[in-house]
């Protein structure tokens, strides 16, 4: 059966990722041949899968902004607002139902590492709000960047009044450097001051980090910075 189709030899000179350095050994080191080829092959498969997904996503996002689209968007917005009103009404009914039956909206479990129940979470509407809910945190952001940058800060209600620290902001692509110059400070009147400096050579992309309580290390939110191209 000499006419059988056989797998073409793998190209070993141009690996997609420098995986070999990850395991403390350079190319040609003691790593088993099957192990190394499997890792390389695995990255090829998953990277190609991700690229295919991105191409599909780009196709769906390729929208024009002519008059028809704007009209469609306004209609969609109206429908969405009606839907949100309906969602809120549903939640309100749930709330009334629970209150009438004498239950609580959220059971606090002692087993949850002693964590106290969150009185409300972003996007959950008024149904989760209780009289003990902390006041919203006022945030001021100072960003130094030579390029367009967009900051997104998502804080839990428990973050109010707590000493916060942000980890270095990492890009999805591990080859990109972290954004380390990030500081969270308490300002006057309980205000939270976020200072970010984006180095001039930081590659465009989205950088994410977790905001944690400086005393307990409990995660209390996320901070993201999207750096655009010049």
């Amino acid at each position, binding site marked *: 059966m*000499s006419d059988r189709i056989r*797998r073409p030899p793998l190209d070993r000179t141009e690996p997609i990722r420098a995986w070999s350095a990850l395991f403390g050994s350079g190319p040609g080191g003691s790593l088993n041949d099957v192990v190394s080829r499997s890792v390389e092959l695995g990255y090829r498969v998953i990277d190609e899968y991700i690229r295919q997904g991105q191409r599909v996503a780009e196709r769906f996002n390729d929208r024009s902004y002519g008059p028809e689209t704007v009209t469609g968007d306004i209609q969609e917005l109206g429908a969405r607002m009606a839907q949100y009103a309906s969602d809120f009404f549903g939640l309100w009914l749930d709330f009334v139902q629970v209150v009438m039956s004498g239950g609580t909206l959220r059971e606090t479990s002692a087993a949850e590492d002693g964590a106290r129940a969150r009185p409300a979470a972003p996007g959950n509407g008024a149904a989760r709000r209780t009289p003990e809910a902390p006041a919203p945190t006022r945030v001021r952001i100072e960003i130094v960047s030579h390029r367009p940058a967009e900051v997104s800060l998502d804080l839990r209600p428990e973050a109010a009044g707590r000493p916060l620290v942000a980890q270095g902001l990492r890009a999805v692509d591990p080859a990109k450097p972290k954004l380390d110059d990030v500081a969270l400070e308490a300002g006057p009147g309980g205000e939270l001051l976020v200072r970010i400096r984006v180095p001039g050579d930081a590659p465009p992309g989205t950088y994410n980090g*977790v905001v944690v309580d400086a005393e307990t290390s409990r995660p209390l939110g996320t901070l993201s910075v999207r750096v655009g191209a010049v």
Partner: protein
Amino acid sequence: MSAAAAPNLVVATLTEYGGLTRAALGDYLQPREPRRHLYDLVADYPSRGGRMLRPTLCIATARAFGAGREDAVRTAVALELLHNAFLVHDDVEDESDERRGRPTLHALHGVPLAVNVGDALTLLGLRALMDNRLRLGPWLTMRILEEAERMARETVEGQAVELGWRRDNATELTEADYLQMVLKKTCWYTTIWPSRVGALIGTRSDRDLDRFLRFGFFLGAAFQIQDDLLNLLGDRARYGKEIDGDVWEGKRTVMLIHLLGAASPEEHARLADFLVRPRAAHEANEVQWIRERMDAHGSIEYARQMAHGLAGAALHEYGLLYAGLPDTRDKRFIDALVTWVLERA
């Protein structure tokens, strides 16, 4: 973490979060009519045990990102119900005889009832996801449902690929073909989806969920290859499935793909003749011959090393994903899980 502590942590976490999931699972498996032909059968596979890997990974990921246990438990229940739905249908499609140490559902009750039970388990899984609404709110509930739709779609696409290989008697497959199939059929619902929805619940944000694709793929692929190895080498009582069942079914595992590539022309022709026939037409001496050829050509060791390589890549991806999070027990569990999938018997 010490090497000895890691398996203990994994087992303890699987026990704790598995127990939590089982308790909530009871809400969806209450006896009710029609019992004899539906709901008693629906409760059969979930009551047979199982390690609860998927629900535990979901809850641990949610907690590693800051959520409470109760925030993720309905999603974990849905995962377990959907997993059992897939198992019921898989067993029919694979003509399997045993599941978790007992006859498969269709072997006990026939194919029509078993298929209907699989459908019911899927619907109960959707119910559990919708029950997230009160605790998580409409936006997060809807996002989790969207993620579930994608997971289910990827899984059935992967299943279609594997079933097509068997129907068309594919014998010229590569490891890349295998990994592409496993990415969809196994990884999405075993490791990718639990990680993605766990992070979604923990962060209350759907930003950058694709970061979990690589970690979930490498962990899930290592898990699947180890599972296939256990099918050949495992202890029947602990494994809970028929030993050599994959060979009987002609399942395209890494070991079989390696054997097909390494076999002599005569061996290859004999293998192709075996694979083209349905399970019922296979003989025990043929299965034994294939097992011996796998040993002779080093197919078992090849698959074992491939699993180790993929697990190493999973550890690297874990480091990239979780480095910024506080050092919690749940984070350490996810770390230890990577080596545990290779060490489980």
